[in-house]
């Protein structure tokens, strides 16, 4: 709260209002008090504003401290380093071995939930400035132990193993983008299908349904 006062003194009134509003929104979001529309707005702002991102980290840190969720060791620059690492990361690594057929009845129905996650990020969430795309996702995890943090990037590189081989002739280089692209098409298709069918509930069920096999495989 002392921090807020300092900002009020130094900033012009309009900007100050903005910051305060954004800050209270962030705080509400950390406390799970925002509805979906507001979350959207807050996130858009968050993805643009480095100051807010830092604040988001602090709020989570405070929240975790209050709830006794802090890890033994805390690395405050971790988010920034992940951010850098992702920015510097080359395109997905080639997958060496041929992959099993995907989605065929033999291997079962399905798509790992992690893939679905990547998809949703991929289609719906491209912010205008691409480099920051993963920033909120990663930076906000600072207070959690590094081990689980590392999971995010690792997961994204393992996706191709599960999904790539729609067809074995597909270039493995394209594994991850393919999964993401194909998924985005399927989500797109089902979104419109629900509007165009007498059985309007089913496409949504399919949307939820084929995002499963991750845990069942």
């Amino acid at each position, binding site marked *: 709260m002392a921090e807020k006062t300092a900002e009020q003194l130094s900033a012009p009134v309009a900007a100050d209002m903005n910051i305060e509003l954004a800050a209270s929104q962030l705080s509400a979001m950390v406390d*799970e008090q925002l509805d*979906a529309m507001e*979350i*959207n707005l807050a*996130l*858009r702002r968050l*993805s643009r504003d480095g100051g807010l991102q830092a604040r*988001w980290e602090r709020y989570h840190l405070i929240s975790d401290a209050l709830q006794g969720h802090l890890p033994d060791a805390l690395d405050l620059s971790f988010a920034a380093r992940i951010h850098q690492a992702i920015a510097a990361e080359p395109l997905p690594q080639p997958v060496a071995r041929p992959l099993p057929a995907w*989605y065929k*009845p033999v291997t*079962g*129905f*399905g798509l*790992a*939930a*992690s893939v679905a*996650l990547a*998809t*949703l*990020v991929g289609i*719906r*969430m*491209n*912010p*205008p400035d*691409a480099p920051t795309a993963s*920033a*909120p*996702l990663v930076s*906000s995890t600072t207070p959690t132990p590094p081990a*689980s943090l590392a*999971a995010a990037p690792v997961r994204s590189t393992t996706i191709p193993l599960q999904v790539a081989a*729609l*067809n074995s002739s*597909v*270039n493995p280089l*394209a594994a991850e983008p*393919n999964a993401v*692209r*194909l998924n985005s098409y399927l989500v*797109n*298709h089902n*979104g*419109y*299908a629900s*509007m*165009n069918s*007498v*059985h309007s*509930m*089913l496409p*949504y*069920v*399919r*949307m*939820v*349904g*084929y995002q*499963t*096999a991750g845990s069942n495989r």
Partner: protein
Amino acid sequence: MNRTLLHCAVLALAAGSFPAAGWPQPPTANARQWLERMIQATQTLNYEGTFVYVQGPHIEAMHIVHSGGNDHERQRLISLSGPLREVVVANNSVICLSPERQATVAGSDYPRSPFPVSIPSELGQLESHYEFTVLGEDRVAGLDTQMIAIRPKDTWRFGYRLWLDRRNGMVLRSALLDDKDHPVEQLMFTDFQLKPHIDEAEFKTPTAPLETQLPPGPPSGGNAKAATGEPVTQSEWRIGQMPEGFIKALHNRFVKTPGHRQTEHLVFADGLATISVFLEKLDGAPALLQGASQLGSMNAFGMTLDGYQILVVGEVPAATVKRIADSIQHTGGVAKP
């Protein structure tokens, strides 16, 4: 005799705005009426229920909350087995939440555009490609249901069997059937409750356990336009063969990633099945899909042509998507779509 009449009267009252449906009905004449009631019911009823969904070897349970109303339909769908997944349809958007253990993606708006042709309301059109039959009665979720068969008149589509609540026409069980009447996909309620009112709060916040989540990913709000796309009036593409009865419901061009390739998206619907055609310029990127693939209850067929990826997907037989894909021509110049 009097007793029967009384019974019928009670049923008629219970059926509310559909008095005719409460009466014993001569089979063939009423399948269409039943489907009309089903459309009405799925859009207007307030209900909450649990169902199982079976697709191939895969089974899972989901919970649904639905609030009806004109232009005010809301729905929340939550997976009860496997990783928590959620779809919330409200305020003209669809939000998919796909938390994978510790991560949630929120705010993935799916813009819903009003459907240009109201196919579902024109069952007559549907009837020229499907045959409706009233079958017997059955019980689902402890409720009396009327079974309806929808059989395609050609081999380009799948059939359905529907179990409709005798009180209101709500679909309580459904099966998507292949040409040999084998179920491709099934859904069955195990519990279904009509509600006088569903609280708005039901459709507001995600139910995912936030303690264990990453916060939502970057917002999509600014991309709503990119996701919706813009209508295409001039296209370089021609689809030579579309099975009769599929009407073009949408022809959009969208950009998935700003500054990246544009994708054309065409949606064709016959009122029951939907087929999407995607045309994406590859620009040297590897092909997405070559040949046939089964994606859950959907079939897909992919091929490349003139440096474009063609992808046809829909809940129709494999031969249908292949035929459509094979018939697509790149006119090179700009032609009327």
